[in-house]
């Protein structure tokens, strides 16, 4: 039984204006796993994330970190936030300083680390997010993608146990989105627990160990990506689409190119491997 690091228990949340943003959320996050929260716009993904490091307080129910319900006292919150970091969707609301270097150093300095240690961490975070050549630039002269990478560096430098990314690839060009996924892989091999939210179904399918699908404030399903994506009615209910790999796989099974017992392909290479080689005979046109 894997260790549960973060858990939402019977969580309900109402915004001050009365909107019921989260309904009866029960979700376990296992240590070291790659979890994706899938859901359309306004499904409540960001609101749930704000619960995970104590920025919002549930109306009923609770958040547990390593089996203990989190406390909302200042000191306890700071301890929690050392362990659970969030990279927000809009980098403009995360970067508070005009200096890239200063902004990245903010988090680690708040952890009470020595100046020497903070410097080393900032340097590593700059390197990991490929922003080393931006360190002397002011944040307002950066492009959206660059700002996004700097805001990621700002959280990486704190070296949290659990890192939550809210829509990390939205607004990144394909190259940087790919590099970001590489970075996630690296963090994952280092043993970090990673939670991302997205509506990119391809990414959710090939990257994650586990999926949770949200729709209007509820988690309507969670489990392995392969299982969930084979339930079209579920995908439709959540306003999502099928990953192209699954779509292709289903069509191939339907047309008889693949036996129904074939395992689901996780990557394009997997799919190409399982398609049987059939010699093509070209008939001369008469």
């Amino acid at each position: 039984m894997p260790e549960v690091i973060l858990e939402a228990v019977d969580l309900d949340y109402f915004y001050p204006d009365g909107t019921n943003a989260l309904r009866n959320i029960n979700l376990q996050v296992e240590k070291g796993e790659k979890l994706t929260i899938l859901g359309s716009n306004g499904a409540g993904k960001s609101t749930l994330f704000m619960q995970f490091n104590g920025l919002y307080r549930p109306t009923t129910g609770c958040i547990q970190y390593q089996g203990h319900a989190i406390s909302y006292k200042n000191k306890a919150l700071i301890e929690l936030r050392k362990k659970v970091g969030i990279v927000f969707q809009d980098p403009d609301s995360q970067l508070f300083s005009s200096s890239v270097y200063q902004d990245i150093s903010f988090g680690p300095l708040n952890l009470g680390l020595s100046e020497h240690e903070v410097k080393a961490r900032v340097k590593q975070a700059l390197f990991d997010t490929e922003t080393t050549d931006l360190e002397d630039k002011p944040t307002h002269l950066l492009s959206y993608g660059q700002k996004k990478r700097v805001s990621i560096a700002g959280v990486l430098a704190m070296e949290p146990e659990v890192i939550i990314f809210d829509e990390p690839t939205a607004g990144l060009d394909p190259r940087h989105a790919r590099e970001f996924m590489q970075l996630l892989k690296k963090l994952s091999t280092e043993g970090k627990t990673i939670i991302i939210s997205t509506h990119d179904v391809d990414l959710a399918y090939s990257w994650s160990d586990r999926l949770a699908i949200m729709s209007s404030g509820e988690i309507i399903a969670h489990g392995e990506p392969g299982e969930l994506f084979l339930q079209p009615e579920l995908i439709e209910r959540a306003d999502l689409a099928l990953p192209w790999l699954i779509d292709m796989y289903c069509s191939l099974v339907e047309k008889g190119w693949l036996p129904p017992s074939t395992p689901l392909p996780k990557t394009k290479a997997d799919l190409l491997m399982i398609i049987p080689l059939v010699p093509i005979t070209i008939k001369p046109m008469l």
Partner: protein
Amino acid sequence: MINIDSYAYSNNLKTIHPGEKSLFAVITMTVCLTSPTYITPLLVLALMAGVIILKAGIPSRIFIKLMLVPLSFLLISVLTIAFSVSTNPSGFWLAHTLYGLTIGIRYPDLITAAQLFLRSLGAVSCLYFLALTTPMTEIITVLHRLKVPAIITELMVLVYRFIFVLMETAITIHRAQASRSGYVSLKVSYRSLSRLFSSLLGKVFVKSQELYNAMAARCYTGEIKVLTKKYPVSLKNYFLITGLGLPLILFNMLWRR
């Protein structure tokens, strides 16, 4: 403003210690403002123009344009000092009398006006030197070192950052309005502008809340602590500052006698 700001990050003097640049600007500005002659401001102006254009590599066109900005204000205020109106026509150097009222220039006033004009221009050039060569974040760090209260320096950090966020938002809203004929007539323009400001205000509240959340998520406890990159301290620069500042100070003192 944006222009000055981008030069601050890309000029040839950006690697010089911000403290040294600030010291240089402050010393020359003080000398310029306290000078009893108009030769010192002229010297300061020439020195700053030289440093800004030749050393920092700011195009001379930009420098001249920037110097023209305060010129109009200056001319107006200086003219009111130079010209006087009086019923007594004596003592005027250049004057015209109409119906018993004399409008004209008295010689000492003219000297005062000219001095004031040059002094202000010289001081402005010193400030431009600092603004064009030193990023705002560095200046804030210098202020922090000088034990300026944290509330002021922290506010400066946030204000400086959010000027740009706010401006970007305003430009985006304006563009969206203009593309839907929001500014075709005066009446429509007024309405669009008022909408722009009200939606900007709403956005500011949302943004500030988001910013607070994001900072709290990074363990913010009420004090913004950041690391600043260290710049090498150059003894040579201190000698240079003294070498340029001392003659100006001496010149001022000798002239006073």
